[in-house]
Each structure stands twice: as structure tokens, then as C-alpha cells.
């Protein structure tokens, strides 16, 4: 009887872990391009499926644990939905930190967000810009602590 309960608990725990792994893996969307850039010097630029995309973060220099304004500009047609940015650390799950962007002009979207500080001392962060139905691009940059 006791072993049956233990087996069921083990299966439940395993299912929970599998779900957590699945949720992490499935959090990405479509094709992603990686671009390294100096976000302190000016906007970061890239192409997604031929569409020019730029990301700018203000104020500069870009500091962790400060209120930041993210601006995404791109060329082409209006997207089916507003783009968004997922902030994270390469190779480390820091939790979901999504910056919701709102229209701020012709093909210009803007939103507020915070890059949190990691006590490990690692300063490399990434901003994954997703334009629905177009694709994603990851800008990798360092931040000031």
C-alpha cells in the first residue's frame, strides 16, 4: 500500500517536472536570429526574413534595476499584432520578463521594462524581439550593474 502511494507520488512529481521542461522549451517561437551589439552606443540593428529591425534602449548607459524605455522600429508592413520583447540571460532561465510594446508612430513601438540584476555578476543579457507572423531576433548585449 505504502509503495503504491510512493509510486503515484513519484509519477506525479515526474509529470510535473516534464511539464516544466516542456513549458520552458515551448516558450520560444519560430526562427530566431542572434545579434551581438553595443546597446550603450546606439540602437542595435538586424534583419528578420528581410525585414529591417532596430532596438534602442534608453536612458544610456543601460543599467540593470533601472526603469528603461525600449523602442523597436522596423520597415515593412504593419504587423498583425504588436511586437514584444522577452528579456533574459543567455544560458540561464531568469523567469518570464516580457516588455509589452505599444504603437508610438509609423512602425515604431515603445514599452517600459527593467533588466534585473543577477548576483552571480554576469552582465550579458539578451532581448528577444518578436514580431508576430514575421519572426524573432535576439540582441545580445552587456548591461551596467
Amino acid at each position, binding site marked *: 500500500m505504502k509503495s503504491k502511494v510512493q509510486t503515484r507520488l513519484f509519477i506525479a512529481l515526474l509529470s510535473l517536472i516534464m511539464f*516544466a521542461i516542456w513549458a520552458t522549451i515551448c516558450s520560444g517561437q519560430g526562427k530566431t536570429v542572434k545579434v551581438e551589439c553595443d546597446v550603450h552606443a546606439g540602437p542595435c540593428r538586424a534583419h528578420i526574413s528581410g525585414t529591417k529591425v532596430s532596438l534602442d534602449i534608453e536612458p544610456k548607459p543601460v543599467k540593470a534595476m533601472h526603469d528603461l524605455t525600449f523602442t523597436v522600429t522596423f520597415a515593412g508592413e504593419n504587423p498583425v499584432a504588436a511586437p514584444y520583447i522577452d528579456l533574459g540571460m543567455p544560458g*540561464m*532561465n*531568469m*523567469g*518570464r520578463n516580457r516588455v509589452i510594446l505599444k504603437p508610438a508612430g509609423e512602425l515604431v513601438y515603445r514599452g517600459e521594462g527593467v533588466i534585473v540584476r543577477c*548576483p552571480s555578476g554576469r552582465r550579458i543579457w539578451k532581448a528577444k524581439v518578436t514580431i508576430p507572423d514575421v519572426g524573432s531576433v535576439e540582441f545580445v548585449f552587456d548591461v551596467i550593474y
Partner: protein
Amino acid sequence: MLSTETIYFVLFTTGLTVGFGHCIGMCGPIVVSLSLSLKGRSVVVPHLLYNGGRITTYGLLGGVMGASGSFTRVVASIASLQKGVMILTGILIVVMGLAMAGWIPLGVIFGDYYNPQGVLSRGFLKLSEARSTGTYYPLGMLLGLLPCGPVYTALLAAARAGMETESTLEGLLIGVGLMLSFGLGTVVALLLIAKLADLGWLKRRDVIYKISSVLMVIVGVYFVIRAVRY
């Protein structure tokens, strides 16, 4: 935008996933130290209390974030406290390591030799040797203040959710709820680590304890260095 129910679920799964990655790396040494300091006694209740304390602090911080709706302002006001907690944690791990191997007479160092009824001496002894199971709850509350990237991210979500509410009370309640969801998610991984570090089944533990003591001292010193640089 996600609905409130969805955010609760997202934060719980975030806690679950970062628990098995980030938390094991960052909080693992603390959990292992606590398990080892129990010297073969059951780890379940003490660690449930430790996690309960940790989640309580998360809930309180979430409440403040949700009520104020400002992440950066609240975090800036507790930054010094967090640094202090990080240094204290490092010292605590070093002391626990040295005491576990019997390399330091805690009673003499912390004044019990002269004042065995001293509040400070008794309090520190309880924390460092964790003789009383009940001390794990306040210890968890204290260690819940440790700076941590995923906790910051969850607090950011609590502050954002609080900003969208119509009253301070509603923001406070949502902030508490979201951080409790996140905290509960992290418990699974830390309890597993606590159980893995439970050496109660070993017949010959002396050598293991000596090796663990050295590792705990190294980890404690690393914590202090990291805190000074933070």
C-alpha cells in the same frame, strides 16, 4: 495581456522551472548546508519550515510591490539590507561548517562561556546549530531576502500587476498571491536537494562531515566575496 489567473499559473511554472536550474545553483549550497547541519535528523519538517519562511518573505515583498506598483523604488530601498543578508548568510555557512566538524567552540566565541543566558548568544547558537526545528522558519524568512534574478523577475510581475489594479489593497493582494505562487513552484527543487543532502542513511559519516565542512567554509567565503562585490 495575460489574465490574472494565467499570471498565477505562469509564475508557479516559472518557480518550478527556475527551481531546477537557477535555484539549485544559487540556493543549493544553503540548502545542503542546512541539511548537513541536521546531522542525520529528519530534513523534511525543517526544510518545509525554511521554505515556508522564504515564501513568506516573497509574499510580503510581493505585497509591497503590488501595493506600490513600483519595482525599482522598492528594490532600491532594500538593496543595502539584501547585501547585509548576503554577507550574513556567508558567515552563517562558514560558522555552520566549522561547528559541524567541531573545529570551533561556538559557546566560547559567542559569549556563552561568560553569559550562557545571553539573548544574542542563545539566538546565534540556535541559528548556527539549528538545534530547534522552529528556527528554520525565521531563518527562511531572512534568507528569502537574498538577492536573486528570478525573484526580481517575479517581483517585477507583481509590481506590474499591482499597477493595473484599481486600489492599493487589490494590488497588495495580487502581489502577495503572485509571489506565493512563484515561491511554491521553487519548493519542489529545493526539497529534493535537501533530501539528497540528507546523509542520515550513512553508517560512517565522520569523514563525509569533515569534507562537507571544508566545502561549506569555501562556499561561505564565496558568498561573502560575492556580497561585497554586489
